[in-house]
């Protein structure tokens, strides 16, 4: 085959490759595009024109209609609740996991392996096994219908984040700690002044994952929140979508779209941290 022929063949294969990969990618995100586009359609036409992606004309009243919410509370309340809970739980999960990870990664003490096995165990334990007694405990504490049951438990470390931070800390040379010890810096000082600043990338990664998981959390809200004033976005959207409540699908899709915007923004800004985090640790969900 001539040089030109080979070049041509390579170009054709490249075009075919990109066409296929792009087309499949389009199919992958089509449902999301459809949801976003439907939020701009006139509510009554959404299903009549379900096959059409781009609306004939863009309507924004779905957003104002949806924002009114239900039960006397606007989506402003639900956003606020989601935000407070996600941020609080994430701060707790990220900081406690970093502290615990330092103990496991750097210090030797009797029973360390047993406790670490316990960390791994919590990762594989189905939540259902502890769900009911936890519910009963929180009920005794009068914590039902508050944000406490879905924030406080995160202040005691999360296995995935402990693991992720440990991997990161292990990559930091021991000599740094040792030189600090000679200077009279205690273990606590080493953690605060040396390790903590160095594990910033891992703190960022765990913060992102934690926020996204808490933002999407549905089950916790379903178990513990039962009045609209306390609802997070996920439980509010579920209630909003129930046929008995309403059938304004335009408003539904408008609020759904708004609810994923924070996640999308984080995804766009921190894409690299996310893909690296996944790649190194296999964080999942």
């Amino acid at each position: 085959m001539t040089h030109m022929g080979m070049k041509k063949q390579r170009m054709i294969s490249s075009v075919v490759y990109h066409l296929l990969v792009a087309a499949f990618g389009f199919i992958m995100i089509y449902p999301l595009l459809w949801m976003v586009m439907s939020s701009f359609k006139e509510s009554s036409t959404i299903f009549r024109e379900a096959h059409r992606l781009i609306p004939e004309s863009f309507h924004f009243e779905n957003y104002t209609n949806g924002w009114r919410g239900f039960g006397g509370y606007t989506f402003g309340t639900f956003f606020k609740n989601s935000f407070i809970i996600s941020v609080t739980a994430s701060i707790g999960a990220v900081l406690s996991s970093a502290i615990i990870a330092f103990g496991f990664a750097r210090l030797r003490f009797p029973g360390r392996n047993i406790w670490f096995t316990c960390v791994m165990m919590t990762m594989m334990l189905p939540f259902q096994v502890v769900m009911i007694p936890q519910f009963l405990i929180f009920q005794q504490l009068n914590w039902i219908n508050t944000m406490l049951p879905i924030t406080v438990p995160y202040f005691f470390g999360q296995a995935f984040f402990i693991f992720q931070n440990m991997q990161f800390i292990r990559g930091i040379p021991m000599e740094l700690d040792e030189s600090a010890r000679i200077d009279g810096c205690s273990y606590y000082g080493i953690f605060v002044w040396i390790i903590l600043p160095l594990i910033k990338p891992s703190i960022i990664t765990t913060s992102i994952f934690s926020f996204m998981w808490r933002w999407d959390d549905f089950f916790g809200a379903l178990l513990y929140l039962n009045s609209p004033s306390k609802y997070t976005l996920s439980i509010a959207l579920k209630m909003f979508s129930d046929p008995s409540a309403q059938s304004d699908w335009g408003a539904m899709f408008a609020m759904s779209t708004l609810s994923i915007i924070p996640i999308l923004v984080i995804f766009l800004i921190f894409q690299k941290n996310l893909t690296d985090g996944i790649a190194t640790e296999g964080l999942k969900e």
Partner: protein
Amino acid sequence: MTAMPQPRRAKRKKPASLSEFLCRESVAGYMFISLFIIGFLVFTIIPMIASLYLSFTNYNILGDAKWIGIANYVKMFTRDSKYLKSLSVTFFYAFVSVPLKLLMALIVAMIMTRQSRVTGLYRSVYYLPSIIGGSVAVAVMWKQLFASDGVINSVLQALSINSTKSWIGSRDSAIWVLILLTVWQFGSSMLIFLAGLKQIPKTYYEAATIDGAGKVRGFFSITLPLLTPTIFFNLVMQTINGFMVFNSGYIITQGKPLNSTLFYALYLYQKAFTDYDMGYACAMAWVLLVIIGLMTALLFSSSKRWVFYQGAR
């Protein structure tokens, strides 16, 4: 004789200052992990013991828990056909969706290894569903996609295939709608595979090419064996998650039609918080724990036969 240890003991008794005590490595170690220990006891161990106890009782949250021995466990496997249905639905879901998802992730990861200027963009597009796939917004949207007047039927009609079937309303297809939602989120597994692929030294392929091995041979003799640890990791995590699936069954189908999407975790939730049959729900949770434990053990014991660790024999 007794005089000797005396001074030593006295020395020990001399109170070490608090900061000295806290600076012992073992004390500091426990200080750092103390948060975990407290949380583990309060939120895991005590609830586990309580739930094991409750599983042998009849407890409906209002009255006292009444000890009934193994009656809950017996009822589950002998008189509760809905329970057995939920078990078979969950096994079917896990055994179909996990391999499909991983296969998809592996194929796309292989395709993604080809470098180009837009590879990063493709990767993000494929990863996006994993990021938001667990949200209520997506579940509600998915429900509408497969409704009788949803996008799927609409597109089919545009292609002049007459379909007015409600995909989530039909016993044969409802579970597949949920499986598809899971498989759609193959992106995070794909990224893990991509990381695994990157670690395979290029020289292996070069050596294979010199030996006259083609691409297909290279895949089956180099890529696949060296990727088995990654496949194994994915398989364990996804299988565990698969058995605990709840959201999609609760939001999209409510376990309907005819319990064809009644996931284990969904039935357990209904038992606990709709019927307030908490003892029974605890027993179900313990059986779930045993099932997941057995599946994990099975995967680990099978791994000796098919997972290859580089450098290990």
